[in-house]
């Protein structure tokens, strides 16, 4: 087994996980193509070893981590999370990984650090989707530091007890379960602590459609479609979408006093 031991987590939902086959064949990973079945088909030349991720910026001990060191950095947990895509569908995914906070603590963020910027791989030779200027490559995402340090925020290295496949963001990716799926940057090569709110790929592409926060919110529609309900893959009917994707109890306080229509 790739992980010597996997701990259960109280943060896991008891909802029924989406079949593994759906999770590994229905993906949004535009670096490998914009159709849902493109990534699984086009990842053949993408190498996830050797791999390093640079953690830098406003921290006392910037460092480059090799993937095999990361696997041993903290106990691997199983986190069964709901995943809500901005397009109106959702899954339940049993991730394997550890809190992003465990990694960030290693580099000792400075008091001046307020945000975290995530950068994904952008290798033209193995990622055919990069040929189209669909987004401003490389893919970047960002979180406020308190969001990044939140215990729900996960650095995922596997799913269903196996190492991540490339179409799911191997070898390591971000998972922020109360935000729309695109906030979970895949195949991370760089994590940077900053004092300014970083630009994000989707926000740059269509600022009126995708905000920096992108918290799941049934009250705030995407300009072109409603976010009030979602189709859980494998189900015929649609479900009501929950505020913060059902994680309001844990995260709503992060946004106390903020107008979520403005900070969408």
């Amino acid at each position, binding site marked *: 087994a790739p992980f010597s031991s996997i701990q259960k987590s109280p943060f896991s939902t008891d909802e029924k996980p989406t079949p593994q086959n759906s999770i590994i064949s229905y993906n949004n990973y535009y670096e490998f193509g914009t159709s849902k079945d493109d990534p699984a088909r086009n990842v053949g030349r993408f190498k996830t070893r050797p791999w390093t991720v640079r953690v830098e910026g406003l921290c006392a001990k910037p460092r480059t981590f090799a993937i095999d060191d990361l696997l041993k950095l903290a106990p691997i947990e199983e986190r069964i999370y709901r995943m809500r895509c901005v397009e109106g*569908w959702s899954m339940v995914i049993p991730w394997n990984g550890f809190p992003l906070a465990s990694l960030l603590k290693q580099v000792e963020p400075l008091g001046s650090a307020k945000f975290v910027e995530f950068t994904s791989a952008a290798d033209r030779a193995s990622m055919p989707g990069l040929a189209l200027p669909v987004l401003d490559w490389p893919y970047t995402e960002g979180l406020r530091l308190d969001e990044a340090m939140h215990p729900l925020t996960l650095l995922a290295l596997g799913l269903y007890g196996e190492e991540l496949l490339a179409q799911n963001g191997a070898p390591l990716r971000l998972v922020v379960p109360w935000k729309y799926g695109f906030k979970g940057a895949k195949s991370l090569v760089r994590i940077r602590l900053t004092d300014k709110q970083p630009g994000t790929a989707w926000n740059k592409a269509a600022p009126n459609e995708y905000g920096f926060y992108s918290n799941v919110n049934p009250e705030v529609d995407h300009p072109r479609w409603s976010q009030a309900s979602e189709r859980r893959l494998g189900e015929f009917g649609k479900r009501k979408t929950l505020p913060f994707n059902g994680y309001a109890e844990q995260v709503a306080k992060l946004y106390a006093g903020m107008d979520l229509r403005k900070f969408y």
Partner: protein
Amino acid sequence: MQTATRRPTAPARNAPRGPGSAQITLAKLALFVLCLLPLGWYLNGLWHDQLGANPIEAITRASGEWTLRLLLATLAVTPLRRLTGWHWLIRLRRMLGLFVFFYASLHLATYVWLDQFFDWAAIAKDIVKRPFITVGFAAFVLLVPLAATSSNFAIRRLGGRRWQALHRSVYAIGVLAVLHFWWLVKRDVTEPLIYGLILALLLGARAWWREQERRRQLAPRAAPLGKRIIPIVQR
């Protein structure tokens, strides 16, 4: 007469003969089966669970794309006739057009049933509020009278000229359908762009030919080419 060579009303002596009525019937039958293939493909895929993780999305998308493809095929009949001289193609056009309506109806049904679950209030809100739904719905509404007046009876009843005027709305339907697709996609507009370019080509060819025709009618008739008298413009 000079103009006689341009658009023969009767087949010219050495022009190829069109297919006979038995052959046309066969062609119609083949086209009918061909147009049903996408439906068969997706029903089979649904039955065998081969439409991927989100079969409802796959069906919604496929019914929309086949509507658009058949619409372009319908619009291609006139230019094809003109380029190839195969005037019998016109006899297949009605069926193509009706299949456009068939797939459009399936597409609308997936939205009303599988996406909105007959929540008419939500559907009405969607149509008003979301431009891509607005144009898609408009395209469907415009298709209804065309499908309803597709019979020979309706053509006789309306009279050819009025029937033709009504059916010219198919150009607008084409534009609305491409817009519907364009405004739906999240970021990668490659596919709607391809459909849009084909539509532009099909509509552009008509505009071009119409302009040529207009110029021909304006040009002096009697003088043969090369011997035209160019009027001297007084300054």
